């Protein structure tokens, strides 16, 4: 049975690569019916369900994949897809913890011989950051809402309007009234209008009430000098400068030199900077009300 399932899975993968998501999803489903002990089939179906914006189904597939794979194996893709679905479902806390699991797994491969993939590390690292920002924004919104703030209420209204529009598109997508390409274009449009409106709202409140709404700068020492993003897992080079682990790994892959001094530098020379990590965590946990630009 597992042989038939593998065949269907391969067909599903081919359909996925061609962007035929609905067909791919069906093929994976048939594969699972033939043989349900292969975690990869669930992971792949989760991925295609993310494309089809079936977030709850994607969550179930990821959990199933993690369960089938068992606790002693690594399954970072499943955790990564899980994080994506959870973030889409507005569960930033859960999404962050899933993203961190994926990140930790790729950081610490089970067999010591396995190489760390800088590309996966980079992908998961930036998703961790995205979840942290979402969590931060949610907490900030909650704070404003507790104060019965007008802005929180307006943001919520915009948010629910956006969700309504997105849901309408998901519905059309699953009824096959819309193709996946068109659906994702429309989604993009909705999201960018939403972002513009939120930004306008923030600007207005910042002008009207600067003390409570002025964006706060993130201190420079918490910013990675390569991506200009705040760090969450900083490592230090020999000369004492710190970078985000994923970006410096990516740089060292191309050029084994210190970005500032151009002295030879290897991944093994890097040290985790726990003090700075604590400072970053403190920032993420702090009540900074807003970021400059979109930090």
């Amino acid at each position: 049975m597992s042989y038939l399932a593998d065949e269907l899975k391969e067909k599903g993968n081919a359909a996925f690569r061609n962007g035929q998501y609905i067909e791919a999803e069906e093929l994976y489903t048939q594969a699972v019916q033939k043989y349900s002990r292969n975690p990869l089939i669930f992971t792949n179906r989760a991925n295609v369900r993310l494309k089809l914006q079936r977030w709850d189904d994607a969550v179930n597939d990821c959990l199933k994949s993690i369960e089938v794979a068992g606790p002693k194996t690594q399954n970072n893709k499943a955790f990564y897809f899980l994080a994506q679905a959870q973030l889409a479902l507005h569960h930033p806390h859960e999404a962050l913890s899933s993203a961190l699991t994926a990140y930790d797994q790729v950081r610490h491969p089970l067999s010591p011989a396995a190489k760390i993939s800088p590309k996966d590390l980079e992908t998961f690292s930036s998703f961790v950051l995205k979840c942290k920002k979402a969590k931060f924004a949610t907490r900030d919104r909650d704070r404003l809402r507790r104060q019965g703030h007008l802005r929180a209420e307006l943001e919520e209204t915009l948010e629910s309007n956006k969700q309504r529009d997105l849901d309408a598109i998901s519905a059309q997508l699953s009824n096959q009234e819309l193709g996946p390409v068109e659906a994702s274009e429309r989604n993009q449009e909705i999201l960018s209008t939403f972002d513009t409106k939120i930004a306008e709202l923030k600007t207005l409140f910042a002008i009207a009430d600067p003390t409570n709404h002025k964006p706060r700068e993130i201190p420079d020492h918490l910013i990675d000098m390569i991506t200009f993003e705040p760090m969450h897992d900083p490592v230090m080079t020999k000369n004492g400068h710190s970078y985000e682990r994923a970006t410096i790994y990516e740089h060292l892959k191309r050029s084994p030199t210190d970005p500032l001094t151009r002295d030879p530098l290897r991944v093994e020379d890097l040290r985790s900077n726990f003090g700075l990590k604590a400072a970053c965590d403190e920032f993420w946990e702090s009540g900074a009300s807003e970021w400059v630009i979109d930090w």
Partner: protein
Amino acid sequence: MAGMSSKRLQKELSKIQGTLPPGITLVSAPDLREWTMDISIIDNPIYPPHETYRMRFSFSPSYPIEAPEVVFVACTSPERKIPLHPHIYSNGIICLDLLDSQGWSPVHNVESVCISIQSMLAGNSKAERPPGDAEFVRSNRQRPRDINFLYHDPKRAFAGGIVF
């Protein structure tokens, strides 16, 4: 990796739109692939203060891990010439180790590249083109990043010739 360059460029852009050092201005940044910058040089008779030079920055999706491609461009309105310098070919190609994959470092940015080029011009005392300029301009079909420049002194942005 795809997300890295656009995020970083967006941030650089909003910073650049705020303040820039004297003599450096942003001309246009229609998207996150290609920007144009103008620079002018103070205090060097080779480059009269009213003359401004235009540079085109092109970014690959791997920026800032990969260097941007930076060249001088000539145009007529407004008038922009290619500055006369022993490391700048008359077709605008700049021979600067910073822009080479060996000399580039991801901690550089558009602003720091502009400052480096500005100071390279400010410190210049020879109003001349690189040796073999005419031949290079006529025969070169390569993108600047693929050219094998021969640096006489890699510590300083100094070049003397090309390996064809």
